């Protein structure tokens, strides 16, 4: 994770720049001040020198002869001597020009008497009597000298590198008759200035670089490096936390950065502890989550979910589904046989959601099933279950439930309602309609509640649809409810034959209605399709001694039953003949030693208009149907006596079957009438 530190980005750059800049500025200021002081001192020195020279030259001049020289323009020996003296001074004192001139105030001119240039100056001297113009400034100075206000005056031309001093030449009466001018070179000033500036800059640069480097290194050690360390430690924090190692964040100097490092260390350790704690909490949460999933699994499997649920019963078709809104839901359905002839169906909705509702659901479901299987009727079941649920119901949960027990033989369904929405029943007219009855109070609400029981008779082809409010209160994106009207119209429109297909169609209609809106409540539905009444068990059954002498009673019993269903005479004979054959068969062969009994049962299937006989004995295992049929094409003399009885049965009956169950030979015959 080490990052190459980019100088452009580093804190060192502004620090370095600031230090260099600051030192340069400081040096420039000091240099400037020093330079000007030095230059002033030099200038002063030069001025004084020039002044002295001017004064000396003036003293050596004979003021009285000056006018004579100007008139004659002729040099005499004295003139030449003075001139040589002046020349000597000019060379010795490095004065470019020394002159003595008379000033003509009117024409603003200077008329030179002596004009000497030094050998090194490179100028050429003016001849005696040469005139040149003077500046106003010069005239002013001249005026003040003439008036006696001042004697010595100096003109400084520092930039041009020279200074000029003027001094009056006075006659005996003290009047200024001429002016001495000394133009002194300031070579030293020039060269000194140059040297000084170069030196200053060099020293400045040196100091700037050295101190810049020093400060930068210092700052780097003191600030940048600790910050980089901190940065690295921050970058690698997760790795350190994973390894369980401690990042190195030692800072030598006790300053703000060390405080920061200490805070970081503290934060690091606290985060470590926090993560450890979080891990523990998360693991706990995961464990709870896994257990909840398991619980919801168990709950889902508590509801009967293997379809077809009762393949041995063709009297009805049942299908149910539950789509929980949360992991564990509060809705449940149930169906079970309370005995061979009674089917119980339950639809319920526990108040609340989640684990408490699920636990309550398990209790309620178990209690209802237990009491129903004890043979109690729905009203009684609710009375008892309600009382039991009220005990210790501190959470104040309750259950709405609808329960019905259908007698498969008669089609009578007894039911009770504990605050649940009524089911829809499809009757003879083919339309689903609500089975309204005044519901009792919810289960687990009040322990004194008594539940009223009602009943309805279902005919073959009738259907009953139980559901919870999750169906009608399914909500689409706009908050619109699915509603009873839509439910009823869909059920009426539904062409599906089987209960399962109907519920599937309904569920997909709800799904398409809801769209992507979230599901708020469990959606639970149960469809019971009553296909036909049970006939097997409502057979009229009688027990006869296994003896020919009982035959008359057997046939009388059969004829009596057949008369009830208005059986045609010819069929009556066929049926009674068949019954006789089977009964006699049992009487003759079932009990070779002691005498036994034969059970004869007769049933009528209204729907198919068919009669079923069942003849059962507890004798030796014998299946008469296995016997070979007699050859009916033989002549009378060749024909064997016997074997005809079962043959007649096979010929006249629509169905004939044999089973051996629980030690009984059971022969069943069915014929349409």
């Amino acid at each position: 994770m080490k990052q190459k530190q980019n100088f452009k980005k580093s804190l060192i750059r502004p620090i370095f720049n600031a230090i260099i800049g600051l030192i340069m500025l400081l040096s420039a200021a000091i240099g400037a001040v020093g330079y000007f002081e030095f230059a002033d001192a030099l200038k002063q020195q030069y001025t004084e020198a020039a002044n002295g020279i001017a004064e000396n030259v003036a003293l050596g001049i004979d003021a009285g002869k000056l006018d004579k020289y100007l008139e004659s323009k002729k040099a005499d020996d004295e003139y030449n001597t003075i001139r040589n003296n002046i020349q000597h001074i000019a060379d010795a004192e490095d004065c470019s020009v020394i002159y003595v001139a008379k000033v003509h105030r009117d024409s603003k001119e200077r008329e030179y008497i002596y004009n000497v240039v030094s050998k090194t100056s490179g100028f050429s001297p003016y001849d005696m009597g040469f005139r040149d113009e003077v500046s106003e400034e010069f005239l002013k100075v001249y005026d003040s000298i003439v008036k006696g206000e001042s004697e010595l005056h100096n003109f400084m031309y520092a930039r041009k590198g020279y200074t000029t001093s003027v001094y009056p030449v006075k006659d005996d009466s003290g009047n200024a008759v001429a002016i001495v001018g000394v133009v002194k070179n300031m070579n030293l000033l020039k060269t000194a200035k140059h040297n000084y500036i170069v030196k200053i800059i060099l020293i400045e640069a040196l100091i700037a670089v050295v101190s810049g480097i020093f400060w930068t290194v210092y700052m780097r050690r003191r600030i940048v490096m600790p910050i980089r360390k901190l940065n690295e430690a921050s970058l690698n924090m997760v790795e350190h936390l994973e390894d369980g190692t401690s990042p190195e964040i030692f800072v030598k100097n006790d300053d703000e950065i060390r405080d920061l490092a200490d805070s970081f260390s503290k934060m690091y350790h606290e985060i470590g502890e926090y993560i450890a704690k979080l891990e523990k909490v998360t693991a706990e949460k995961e464990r709870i989550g896994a257990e909840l999933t398991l619980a919801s699994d168990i709950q889902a499997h508590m509801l009967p979910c293997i379809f077809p649920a009762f393949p041995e019963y063709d009297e009805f078709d049942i299908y149910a589904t539950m789509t929980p809104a949360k992991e564990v839901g509060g809705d449940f359905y149930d169906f079970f046989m309370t005995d061979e002839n009674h089917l119980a169906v339950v639809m319920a909705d526990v108040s609340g959601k989640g684990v408490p509702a699920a636990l309550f659901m398990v209790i309620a479901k178990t209690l209802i099933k237990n009491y129903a299987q004890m043979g109690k009727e729905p009203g009684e079941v609710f009375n008892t279950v309600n009382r039991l649920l009220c005990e210790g119901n501190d959470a104040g949960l309750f259950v709405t439930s609808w329960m019905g027990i259908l007698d498969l033989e008669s089609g009578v369904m007894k039911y009770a309602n504990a605050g649940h929405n009524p089911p829809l029943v499809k009757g003879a007219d083919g339309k689903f309609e609500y089975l309204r009855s005044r519901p009792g109070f919810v289960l687990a609400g009040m322990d004194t509640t008594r539940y009223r029981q009602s009943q309805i008779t279902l005919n073959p082809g009738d259907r009953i649809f139980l559901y919870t409010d999750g169906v009608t209160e399914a909500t689409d994106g706009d908050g619109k409810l699915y509603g009873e009207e839509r439910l009823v119209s869909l059920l009426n429109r539904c062409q599906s034959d089987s209960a399962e297909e109907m519920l599937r169609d309904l569920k997909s209609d709800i799904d398409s209605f809801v769209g992507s809106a979230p599901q708020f409540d469990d959606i639970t539905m149960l469809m019971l399709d009553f296909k036909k009444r049970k006939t097997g068990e409502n057979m009229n059954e009688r027990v006869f001694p296994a003896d020919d002498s009982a035959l008359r009673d057997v046939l009388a019993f059969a004829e009596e039953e057949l008369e009830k269903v208005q059986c045609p005479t010819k069929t009556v004979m066929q049926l009674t003949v068949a019954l006789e054959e089977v009964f006699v068969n049992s009487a003759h062969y079932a009990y070779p030693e002691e005498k036994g009994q034969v059970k004869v049962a007769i049933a009528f299937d209204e729907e198919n208009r068919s009669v079923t006989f069942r003849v059962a004995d507890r004798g030796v295992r014998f299946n008469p149907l296995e016997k070979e049929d007699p050859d009916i094409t033989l002549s009378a003399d060749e024909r064997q006596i016997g074997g005809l009885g079962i043959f007649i049965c096979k010929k006249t009956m629509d169905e004939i079957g044999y089973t051996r169950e629980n030690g009984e030979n059971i022969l069943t015959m069915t014929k349409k009438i």
Partner: protein
Amino acid sequence: MTINKEKNNGILTLAIEGRLDTVTAPELEKVVNEETADVRELILDMKGLEYISSAGLRVLLAAQKKMNKQGVMKLTDVCDAVMEVFEMTGFADILTIE
């Protein structure tokens, strides 16, 4: 079941009324065995017979076998239901039904 016997000139006519089943068949069998010793022609009047089971068929078959040796046997006025049993069992081909 009732059986009316009428014997005339070696012709025995038995008019059977009621049911010929496991219980009554032995009665007919007994009559046939006792009365047909010198009979050439046995006529079974089935007009009153409304019911016949395999036990009855057995007696008829036995009678037919016996009469085949000493003469003829005829059945008269067989009702539809009984006739159907005869046809079903092949007896219609064995017996002489008028």
